[in-house]
């Protein structure tokens, strides 16, 4: 009976080898897949088990990890959560991470390569791994002013420092409180999330950079004007500006706001056309210039480019090969032209900064847990959007809009403001979107911004950019100017 026992021992050996192979498969070969499985709470616990770095605005933590006595060790805590939600996003044990909580995750949880020496230090000191803190470019007071101004209207405000590209304010309305999703009670988080998700006004959507893109309407005339200046026009070039303009190849015509005539002799200067936002003049200008010229200028301001700030910004769109009629409509920021509020703020910033468009960014400084600086974002030129002289000409034209054009509601005492209104048609049955794009002070800009109020906000059908959006822009610009005077910008 010895021979079968020997054979049996080979069988046993084979069985054990099979176990060893499958264990190796699970623990080594397949391990990273299993560790990254979203159902694997272990990874979450490990992240929560470490102190996750805070977000800082104006030197104060707005998001931090507070020690708690549960398996996660820390509770992500949001002060003024709704105010900063579009930037910070949420950090949920159920739904994962969004916005900066996601893009800056490795810095926040301390696993980023740039934190290697800090980790090593922690290791030797026997301390727990610590995440870095992220200082944002946002200004609390501007965020607050923009939020208050939007009130319960749907819309967005994006304000940039045109000199650096720093995003000073990024507000979307309505917003939500990330604390609702950061709790450790899964059922409660589920319920809160479903409620937010089912709300018809979409609080989880960041309208400023990643919502549905909007037709820019008349604010797109800034691009037409910039293209015209580059093509050799100047502020005083006379444009054809009839009361109604036939759309070639169709039986339809383009009119002006309220059907009014732009001028008595069907002709007006480029500057005046922009000042009163004459539709027929710009539609004709668009067809004269050819779409490809307008398109190139839009692209000079970053249109159709995907950027990250580091949040991913939805690409703004342009029509492909429009015919003449479509070109005319596109020149008015309708048809297939779409833009994010950030894109429109970038147009303002590019003009404001003498034609040099700086790359927008949200993260200013990253500090390790011992407060040593790990990384500082240095301003970067993104595009040379237009020449300095063209930019100055366009600035003067935009000052005209606010001084005695469609944008008078944005006037600020003692400060020259450059701006452009927009009232974008959205369809037969819905009210138009109200836009305002501006920067101030016009001669030495410290802030450039775009405001959109969806479907006319509380005014509805009667809304225009000048009436609804310009006052919001004014308040935000005033706050920026105040900060600049106090040296806080």
């Amino acid at each position, binding site marked *: *009976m010895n*021979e079968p026992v020997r054979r049996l*021992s080979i069988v046993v050996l084979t069985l*054990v080898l099979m*176990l060893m192979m499958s264990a190796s498969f*699970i623990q080594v070969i397949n*391990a990273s897949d*299993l560790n990254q499985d979203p159902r694997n709470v*272990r990874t979450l616990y490990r992240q929560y088990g470490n102190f996750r770095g805070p977000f800082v605005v104006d030197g104060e933590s707005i998001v931090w990890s507070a020690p708690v006595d549960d398996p996660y060790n820390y509770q992500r805590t949001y002060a003024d959560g709704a105010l900063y939600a579009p930037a910070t996003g949420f950090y949920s044990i159920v739904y994962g991470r969004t916005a900066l909580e996601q893009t800056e995750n490795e810095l926040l949880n301390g696993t980023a390569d740039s934190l290697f020496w800090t980790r090593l230090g922690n290791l030797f000191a026997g301390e727990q791994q610590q995440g870095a803190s992220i200082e944002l470019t946002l200004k609390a007071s501007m965020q607050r002013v923009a939020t208050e101004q939007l009130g319960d209207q749907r819309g967005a405000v994006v304000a940039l420092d045109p000199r650096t590209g720093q995003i000073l304010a990024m507000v979307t309305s309505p917003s939500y409180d990330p604390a609702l999703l950061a709790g450790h009670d899964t059922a409660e988080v589920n319920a809160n999330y479903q409620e937010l998700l089912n709300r018809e006004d979409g609080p989880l959507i960041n309208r400023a950079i990643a919502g549905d893109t909007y037709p820019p309407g008349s604010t797109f005339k800034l691009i037409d004007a910039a293209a015209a200046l580059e093509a050799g026009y100047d502020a005083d070039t006379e444009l054809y500006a009839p009361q109604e303009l036939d759309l070639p190849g169709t039986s339809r015509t383009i009119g002006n706001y309220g059907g009014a005539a732009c001028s008595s002799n069907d002709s007006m200067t480029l500057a005046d056309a922009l000042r009163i936002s004459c539709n027929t003049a710009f539609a004709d200008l668009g067809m004269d210039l050819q779409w490809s010229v307008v398109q190139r200028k839009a692209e000079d301001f970053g249109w159709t480019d995907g950027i990250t700030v580091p949040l991913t910004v939805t690409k703004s769109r342009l029509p492909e090969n429009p015919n003449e009629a479509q070109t005319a409509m596109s020149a008015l920021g309708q048809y297939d032209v779409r833009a994010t509020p950030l894109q429109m703020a970038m147009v303002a910033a590019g003009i404001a900064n003498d034609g040099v468009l700086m790359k927008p960014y949200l993260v200013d400084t990253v500090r390790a847990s011992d407060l040593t600086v790990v990384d500082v974002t240095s301003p970067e030129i993104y595009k040379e959007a237009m020449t300095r002289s063209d930019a100055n000409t366009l600035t003067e034209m935009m000052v005209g809009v606010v001084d005695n054009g469609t944008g008078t509601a944005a006037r600020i005492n003692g400060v020259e403001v450059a701006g452009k209104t927009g009232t974008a048609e959205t369809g037969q049955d819905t009210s138009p979107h109200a836009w305002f794009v501006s920067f101030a002070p016009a001669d030495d800009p410290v802030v450039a911004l775009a405001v959109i109020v969806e479907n006319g906000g509380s005014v509805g059908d009667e809304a225009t950019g000048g009436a609804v959006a310009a006052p919001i822009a004014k308040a935000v610009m005033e706050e920026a100017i105040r900060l600049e005077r106090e040296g806080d910008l």
Partner: protein
Amino acid sequence: MATVSEISVRAGRRSELALMGMAWVIIVLARALVDYNAAYLELDAIAFYGLGAAVLMIAAHFVLDRVAPNADPVMLPAVFTLNGVGIAEIHRIDLAEGTGFATAQITWAALGVATMIAVLLLLRDHRKLRRYTYTAGVVGLILYMLPLVPGLGITINGARIWISALGYSMQPGEFAKIALVVFFAGYLVTNRDTLALAGPKFLGLRFPRPRDMGPLLLVWAAAMLIMVYERDLGASLLFFGIFLGMLYVATQRLSWVLTGMGLFAVGGTMAALTIPHVRSRFDAWLHALDADTYSSGTSEQLVRGLFGMASGGLFGTGLGEGRPDLVPYAESDFIIASLGEELGLTGLMAILTLYLIIVQRAFRASIGVRDGFGKLLASGLGFAMAIQVFIVVGGVTRVIPLTGLTAPFLAYGGSSLLANWIVIALLLRVSDMARRPSEEVA
């Protein structure tokens, strides 16, 4: 049985003592690491624990030296190591969950060692057991069927392999396993010649005569009953696997094994298709990571174990530094996953190797001993442990569907621990005979 190979070995009691020393260091260090990493190190508690372990180990060694001086020197240190590592991990889970399993397990381990000593003292010659062949058979069957008695049997985690009485619960199958090995050994050593007779030839293999198929069919039927009524694939597979292995050793006929495996495959497939509990185990095994299977809870337990093991990786998180408490039944059915997480693949390999050593030592005793009953007893007990490890670890690592069996010596559970210490006592007894210098053999 005339094939006696002359094996001359040193008794090895001193090697055993040295190995025991190493095992002791591992046992105490494991416990100390758990305390240090998961709570705080209390030197008094560790010293007390170390002392207790030393007393048990020295007692076992001393008794072996007296009543089984030629017994295998490797087996006992390996078993102590497994038992100690198991206790350390159970203690670790206690710390995470606030349970008190470790204290009970330590008590059972001490009782287990005492039982082993008692068996060695009472049973001076394993051949005496042959007298109780049929008694053992009946006892084994009764023990296996006990959980089916209404009011006595209880269902835990879907399988009805537990009984509960007077506030205590136990898994009688663990003891039934021993009784059945004794029965099979006695039965097969008597009837092996008949069973080995040649029957019809098919596909180049000579199959047994149909009229000799009775016992195989009977055991198969019993295995199927266990699967159907206790709803446990593991217990059934273990029971039938032991029989097939021993049948093969007794008859040397591969055809028996193939016939048996064919029968079991048919029965297992039928069960998988018709019994919901068994079928869900199959589903969980085949589609563990699918969203449906996971979210319905079918494979959640298994997958959580996989997550644990994956987080351990090659070297583990370290004892007391993982999160084994995130896996249900981390201290019993899933202790392998817990150990895989905290000790890593390296630790798991070491544990599997310890099992392999114990089983191979059992086989070596089987080859060395001269009587057929002893050969069948030792190889049967060894093979039983091997299959059980395969079923348990294979279940956790997705080689086979998950079942309700527990890892010998590691998992929490008094019945399992006591039964396996008895197995070790019997194996030591046989190995003592096997390794006895030939002039002493009567």
